[in-house]
């Protein structure tokens, strides 16, 4: 009996894995997807070499990698937690095995467990393993290298799995009727509690198994497994949300907008506001980014004694929230759906840009203000950082829209598009971060130059986003998308 159940479990696992593989190779073309891990490896290696050359301690690099991987796990968690509408939609549309499970004699709880196991292994191989080559410049080319890469991979994988388990825990809590705000409050209490009781360093160490003791590593592994199992048991497969109603707000929002394509903008804003997690989703995403950057700044200061100019540093990095905000704005519609109406694809993109500004400005501005106050930025630094934040966010937005069109989430697995996006981001961000680390506090001249740079990149972003419409319209009408 048990053998039969195991066989079914493996059958599901391999069917899901095969489906995942075909999904990505079909979406992006085989070689573009196969190249993706190599691209991640090259980026990790390049970043690691650059950090070593600039005198960054090995411990800082390893801790930073773990923070990054944990953030990635948490981001997956955010999608499940704040965007369960999106998750259900993605499950149903893209996974034939998952969507047909309701017609088969299979437990949905079991399906979710196997699905997460498959996803964990998939990301562990495609993302985390290539990231582990960052250890090469730290240990050099020696006989110990394979062991060092393997150890870092296992360590990163465990940290990533811990993040993923949070996903399951939060989804399970939602299916048991715990409201989103309740889960957010609990998470906030834990974070604040750790900070207030002075356990930040302990929490950080716990998430870096490579540097931990064996009992600590075993503790993290067992906790991850335990929370995962409890969450799966707690997950209510029969959970379904009652139908939701809403009063008519479309006309009011549409009339209040002082721009063209107001109906398209109003629809985008309402879709975002009413999907699970509401308008807070982009804030949650940017908060994770903020927390990671703040932790990195603290880490670097603690180890090297260097502290960057907070305005410039946070302005440059928080601009990346443009990607996550745009991602949320495109989760609840598709370009094809608009083709039944007398609107052009260019008009749809223009409307998305307006919605992006409306949502993205407060989303990025709030954590930026917290950063400049918390890290005590000077006036010049804060002003320069604000200009960088606005300009770079528009630039990153334009870059995302131009390269990825309406599917920013999917292009993460396309090596060519991802490489283009990464180079585009690096061109703006790397020199800015270097300036933020070297000239502290920034001089008047540097601040003025950075303000001009922010404006310049903002103009480039505007142009890119304007050209994205005709570019994607041409592709859709050719039938190649």
């Amino acid at each position, binding site marked *: 009996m048990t053998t039969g159940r195991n066989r079914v479990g493996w059958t599901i696992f391999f069917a899901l894995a095969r489906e995942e593989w075909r999904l990505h190779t079909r979406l992006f073309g085989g070689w573009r997807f196969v190249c993706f891990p190599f691209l991640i490896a090259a980026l990790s290696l390049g970043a690691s070499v650059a950090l070593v050359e600039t005198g960054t301690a090995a411990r800082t690099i390893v801790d930073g990698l773990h923070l990054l991987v944990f953030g990635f796990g948490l981001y997956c968690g955010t999608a499940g937690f704040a965007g369960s*509408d999106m998750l259900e*939609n993605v499950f149903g549309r893209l996974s034939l095995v998952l969507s047909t499970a309701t017609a088969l004699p299979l437990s949905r709880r079991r399906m979710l467990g196997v699905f997460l196991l498959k996803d964990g292994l998939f990301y562990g191989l495609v993302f985390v393993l290539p990231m582990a080559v960052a250890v090469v410049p730290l240990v050099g080319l020696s006989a110990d290298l394979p062991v060092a890469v393997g150890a870092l991979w296992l360590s990163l994988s465990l940290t990533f799995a811990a993040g993923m388990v949070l996903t399951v825990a939060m989804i399970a809590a939602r299916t048991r009727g715990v409201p989103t705000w309740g889960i957010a409050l609990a998470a906030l209490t834990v974070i604040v509690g750790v900070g207030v009781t002075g356990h930040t360093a302990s929490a950080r160490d716990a998430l870096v198994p490579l540097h931990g003791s064996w009992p600590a590593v075993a503790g993290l592994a067992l906790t991850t497994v335990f929370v995962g199992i409890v969450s799966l048991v707690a997950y209510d497969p029969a959970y379904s*949300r009652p*139908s*939701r*109603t*809403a*009063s*008519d*707000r*479309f*006309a009011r929002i*549409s009339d209040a907008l002082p721009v063209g394509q*107001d*109906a*398209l903008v*109003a*629809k985008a804003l*309402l*879709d975002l*506001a*009413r*999907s699970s997690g509401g308008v807070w989703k982009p804030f949650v995403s940017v908060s994770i980014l903020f927390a990671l950057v703040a932790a990195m700044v603290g880490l670097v200061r603690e180890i090297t004694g260097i502290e960057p100019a907070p305005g410039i540093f946070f302005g440059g990095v928080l601009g990346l929230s443009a990607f996550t905000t745009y991602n949320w704005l495109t989760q*609840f*519609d*598709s370009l*094809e*759906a608009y*083709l*039944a*109406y*007398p*609107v*052009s694809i260019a008009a749809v993109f223009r409307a998305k840009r307006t919605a992006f500004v409306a949502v993205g400005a407060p989303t990025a501005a709030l954590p930026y203000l917290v950063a400049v106050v918390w890290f005590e930025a000077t006036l010049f630094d804060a002003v320069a950082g604000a200009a960088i934040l606005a300009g770079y966010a528009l630039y990153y937005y334009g870059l995302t829209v131009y390269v990825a069109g309406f599917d920013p989430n999917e292009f993460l697995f396309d090596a060519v598009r991802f490489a283009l996006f990464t180079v585009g981001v690096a061109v703006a961000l790397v020199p800015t971060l270097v300036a933020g680390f070297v000239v502290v506090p920034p001089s008047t001249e540097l601040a003025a130059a950075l303000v001009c740079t922010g404006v310049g990149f903002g103009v480039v972003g505007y142009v890119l986003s304007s050209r994205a419409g005709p570019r994607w319209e041409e592709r*859709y*009408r*050719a*039938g190649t998308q």
Partner: protein
Amino acid sequence: MGVIQVDGLEKSYDAVRAVDGMEFRVERGELFGFLGPNGAGKTTTIRALTGQIEPDEGTVRVLETDPVEEPIETRRRVGILPEQESPPSFLTPREFLAFVGRVRDLEPATVEERTAIWAERLGFESKLETLHTDLSRGQQQKVMFAQAFLHDPDVVFIDEPLANLDPLVQEQVKRFLVDYAADDNAVFVSTHNIEVAEEICTRVGIVADGRIVTERSVGTTDEPLLEVFLEHVEGEAVRDTPAVAQAQR
């Protein structure tokens, strides 16, 4: 010239020739059935006729507009009910129809009045304030049906008109389509349901391998449409066609 005119239409996706020399015309007053198995090229043809894609070869005219050169103008004049499942919009049906009214430049009062009429006709009055994403598929189809007719277009393109609708509503929809076409409009119905085509269409074009293989006016001969269909369409795709599967059983 017909309100829909297609000459030598061709469209390929990579190595797959989806539409291969399609030719037909539809006049006012006709309920034209575009009948064929899955994968015959029906949806691609509708997408070309409504300016959603550019054909590789051939010309198309809809209500004296060229969908290739002026796709927005074509879509302004026609109604479209696409086959694909609608995305999970979080607007209510009332808001969604207001949205459609805005992009079609209709007066809000007109939209409100027609929303009430369509909600009563198709029976979704009690769901007007429910989020679209929380409606059943059948209810979503009703709302999508209403949006296609909201601006009272002269030509309507419908891909599988009765999908997900309950039998009672199906009957209402069929009667409505017949009356709408008879009122000097044209309704273009793409379907693989032979019985529905035979019941409501005035004329049917049978599609196979990307082109119309035969056309006939419905009710002019005693030969059942199913037999005509089987004469002209072969292969495994035929078995997916509902009436054929039923006949074989």
